[in-house]
């Protein structure tokens, strides 16, 4: 079944965080619901819609930035008390706006996730989980990595309290009291957790999760184990999931899943007869969707999907038909409502323009003063720098509350900027002189078209080359100011954390022994590898597993105070680690004892891993060469039936092949680079310098054959 949802914008508040908009339960069965939304200025706005106008119920005074909003109430009653967390404080309001609770959690960090259930309050700061009952401390847990969200299985159906934490290291941690019961591996860093059906399903054990890389899943959590019921992969590379809700918007009697993503996509997944989720509706809002709810706001008895976006727009996607009347020659006629809206906006704009002109004159005058200091307008930037698993590149997304005017990217390491189709910005590459010391390798400006608040860029880095990438963001604000963001490109930038690795691969080992503390070696590892928690892990020693997203080679890092072991099946990885670690240690005047154990089989193993990729790229190049000629033949003969099947196949796939070929030069270059690095590294560990033989290697690569390449590696 298809549905049509029409977009209505209701109200704009300040910049908002993830999960800070909720619908209050309706009073009657059919009445419209009120919306509660909290923004970064600390203002909670609660409003209802009356005849297309937002009528405020209450609005609180500004305060600290609100990071979460949840609804609660005594169990069994309508959940209509509004709880918000700002800083390390939790506040509670009644639906009329009367504050009845102010609870200082006394945490050193600010709360970034919260769950309310009856008298129980669950809050999480970056690494800390705390459970309070009637504001009395109950349980405490320190997680190994950042906590992104928390949910608690419904106590009324289960009879016990089961909190589940979504942690950055791709794990859901199931707790009991202050103890970890077990953890569940999920395919990406989970960003949001929600009870399925808002009550955890029939058994109260089902939870939905969404990940930073855009995957969705449903997991059943039982006493001692968990089972995954379904998973939706992110094949179309949509944005990360920021919010989920369950609501029957299709009207088929089965609850649907509503999903909001950080690239503005709103999706509705319905269930068919086989209980598999299928996409039924999709809409793009162009800003990241931070909260999503199903319900009825605009007009009674018409269900809708209510969303809130980063810049604070509360928008409904309603099932209500938009145009109610029409007649002859009225195609362009606006409805009464739109006309009055336009008139109101015009009047407001005129008034504001007057005020701004006055204000600007005043500012110009005071700017002449020698003692006055010109203050900068502060604006918030929502940025994300993540590694995409499937194309081994980083995606950088920047979102500003107002439209972006331009963006400057500066990098001191060689990186490639890839095209993103969604972007409408104009790119200009400036020539830069990388020869000079501290020179730039990349200087790019993006000039954005009007009303672009969000920009997505793809950055491709090379392993071993590390440094910083800086972004200078200038929004369309007066006076024009600029904010700088810095992103680290780590030495092993293409490595991703995993849960396990294959132990039977040929491994090279690098061991460090010296006078260093656990925190010190952790900081080095943090410097070298992405997705490592900033906080030094608890305990005496720690093991992390990583996988190279480009080649599939692995790395195991085990370290404790005074000792560290790094195992990898790729010599290049070990070589990079050795260089960087010794450099870091010398910087801190630490004496390190570095020893390594090289497994000769590992080179062959790595080459075999590269082989299919290289072969594919070469084959692609060969096929693409033929396309033009084959097409000409096809035009001449009228059909391609006389061709051998192989060629006919190429013709059929020509569009796809050409598209792949467009990306190919970079890929081939990258592979060549990796093989050359591998070659140099292999001999470097033997104490030989083979840089002179690189040209010979390139010759071998041009007439690629796995055996001859292996021979070259062995002989030289």
């Amino acid at each position, binding site marked *: 079944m298809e549905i*049509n949802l029409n977009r209505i914008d209701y109200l704009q508040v300040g910049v908002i965080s993830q999960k800070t908009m909720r619908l209050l339960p309706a009073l009657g069965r059919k009445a419209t619901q009120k919306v509660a939304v909290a923004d970064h200025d600390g203002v909670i706005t609660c409003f209802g819609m009356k005849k297309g106008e937002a009528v405020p119920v209450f609005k609180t005074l500004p305060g600290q930035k609100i990071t979460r909003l949840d609804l609660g109430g005594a169990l069994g009653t309508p959940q209509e008390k509004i709880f918000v967390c700002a800083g390390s404080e939790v506040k509670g309001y009644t639906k009329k706006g009367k504050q009845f609770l102010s609870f200082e959690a006394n945490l050193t960090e600010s709360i970034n996730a919260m769950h309310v259930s009856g008298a129980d309050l669950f809050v999480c700061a970056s690494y800390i989980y705390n459970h309070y009952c009637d504001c009395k401390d109950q349980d405490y847990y320190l997680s190994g990595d950042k906590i992104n969200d928390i949910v608690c299985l419904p106590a009324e159906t289960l009879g016990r309290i089961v909190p589940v934490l979504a942690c950055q290291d791709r794990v859901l941690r199931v707790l009991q009291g202050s103890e970890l019961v077990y953890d569940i591996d999920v395919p990406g860093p989970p960003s949001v957790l929600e009870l399925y059906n808002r009550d955890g399903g029939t058994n109260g054990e089902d939870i939905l999760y969404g990940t930073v890389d855009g995957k969705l899943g449903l997991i059943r959590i039982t006493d001692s184990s968990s089972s995954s019921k379904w998973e939706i992969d992110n094949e179309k590379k949509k944005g990360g999931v920021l919010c989920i809700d369950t609501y029957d918007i299709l009207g088929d009697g089965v609850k649907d899943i509503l999903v909001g993503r950080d690239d503005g996509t709103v999706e509705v997944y319905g269930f068919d007869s086989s209980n598999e989720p299928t996409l039924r509706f999709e809409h793009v809002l162009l800003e990241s969707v931070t909260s999503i709810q199903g319900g009825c706001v605009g007009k009674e*008895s018409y269900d809708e999907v209510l969303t809130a976006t980063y810049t604070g727009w509360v928008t409904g996607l309603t*099932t209500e038909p938009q*145009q*109610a009347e*029409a*007649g002859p020659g009225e195609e362009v006629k606006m409805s009464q409502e739109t006309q009055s809206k336009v008139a109101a906006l015009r009047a407001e704009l005129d008034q504001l323009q007057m005020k701004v002109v006055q204000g600007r004159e005043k500012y110009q005058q005071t700017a002449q003063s020698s003692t006055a200091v010109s203050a900068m307008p502060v604006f918030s930037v929502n940025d994300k720098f993540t590694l995409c698993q499937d194309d081994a590149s980083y995606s950088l997304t920047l979102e500003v509350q107002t439209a972006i005017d331009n963006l400057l990217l500066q990098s001191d390491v060689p990186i490639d900027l890839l095209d993103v189709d969604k972007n409408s910005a104009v790119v200009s590459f400036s020539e830069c002189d990388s020869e000079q010391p501290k020179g730039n390798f990349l200087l790019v400006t993006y000039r954005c078209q009007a009303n672009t608040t969000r920009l997505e860029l793809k950055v491709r880095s090379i392993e071993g080359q590390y440094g910083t990438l800086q972004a200078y963001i200038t929004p369309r604000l007066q006076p024009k100011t600029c904010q700088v963001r810095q992103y680290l490109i780590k030495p092993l930038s293409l490595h991703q954390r995993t849960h396990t690795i294959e132990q039977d691969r040929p491994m090279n080992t690098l061991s460090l022994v010296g006078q260093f503390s656990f925190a010190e070696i952790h900081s080095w590892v943090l410097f070298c590898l992405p997705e490592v928690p900033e906080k030094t892990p608890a305990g005496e020693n720690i093991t992390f597993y990583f996988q190279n997203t480009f080649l599939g080679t692995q790395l195991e890092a085990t370290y404790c105070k005074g000792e560290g072991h790094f195992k990898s099946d790729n010599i290049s990885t070990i070589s990079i680690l050795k260089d960087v670690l010794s450099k870091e240690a010398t910087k801190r005047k630490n004496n390190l004892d570095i020893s390594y154990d090289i497994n000769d089989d590992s080179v062959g193993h790595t080459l075999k891993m590269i082989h299919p990729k290289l072969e594919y790229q070469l084959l692609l190049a060969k096929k693409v060469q033929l396309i033009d000629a084959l097409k000409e033949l096809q035009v001449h003969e009228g059909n391609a039936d006389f061709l051998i099947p192989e060629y006919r196949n190429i013709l059929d796939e020509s569009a796809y092949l050409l598209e792949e070929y467009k990306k190919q030069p970079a890929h081939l270059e990258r592979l060549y680079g990796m093989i050359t690095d591998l070659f140099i590294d292999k001999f470097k560990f033997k104490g030989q310098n083979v840089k002179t033989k690189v040209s010979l290697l390139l010759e071998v690569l041009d007439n690629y054959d796995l055996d001859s390449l292996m021979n070259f590696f062995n002989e030289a």
Partner: protein
Amino acid sequence: MGLLDKLSGWLGLKKKEVNVLCLGLDNSGKTTIINQLKPSNQSLFGPLSDDWKHVSQTQTQDIVPTIGFNIEKFKSSSLSFTVFDMSGQSRYRNLWEHYYKESHAIIFVIDSGDKLRMVVAKEELDTLLNHQDIRSRRLPVLFFANKSDLREAMSLVKVSQLLCLENIKDKPWHICASNAVKGEGLLEGVDWLQDHIKTMKT
């Protein structure tokens, strides 16, 4: 009309009576729409003239498919409508043309959720508009794109496209999205109809 009648008409005491034909395919919601337009309580509007005592003037609870036709009455702010609620079943559709002559306006109801029979509705509409008793008169035609609350309902623009309403050049027409069960959109339509009947007569 005597002076007294005219005077009372101006003062709005006695409302002008007009005949309206309510047409559309079966199951499009004609009877439900007419039923919604009737007063829910008789005493609100006072008794109508004696001639209509036998016609039920309040809303009924159950609505069954119409056989032949029903005559119903309701009032808007300045007009008193007599509606011929025709059956839309195919075997009764030939009855429609008998009432064309004495009608002052037409309400045409379309089930906007019924994509399949939209062509049938269009055909019936075309024969209606090309009928000799209709063709030459500037009758106002009010369309109700009914059942707009259904999720699979087509939008009003889509309905008017499918029925080629833009081709109606010689009659004033208007289309309203409506939900007859709830009564949404009906009053807007009747208001338009009333304005046009008044301007047509004067």
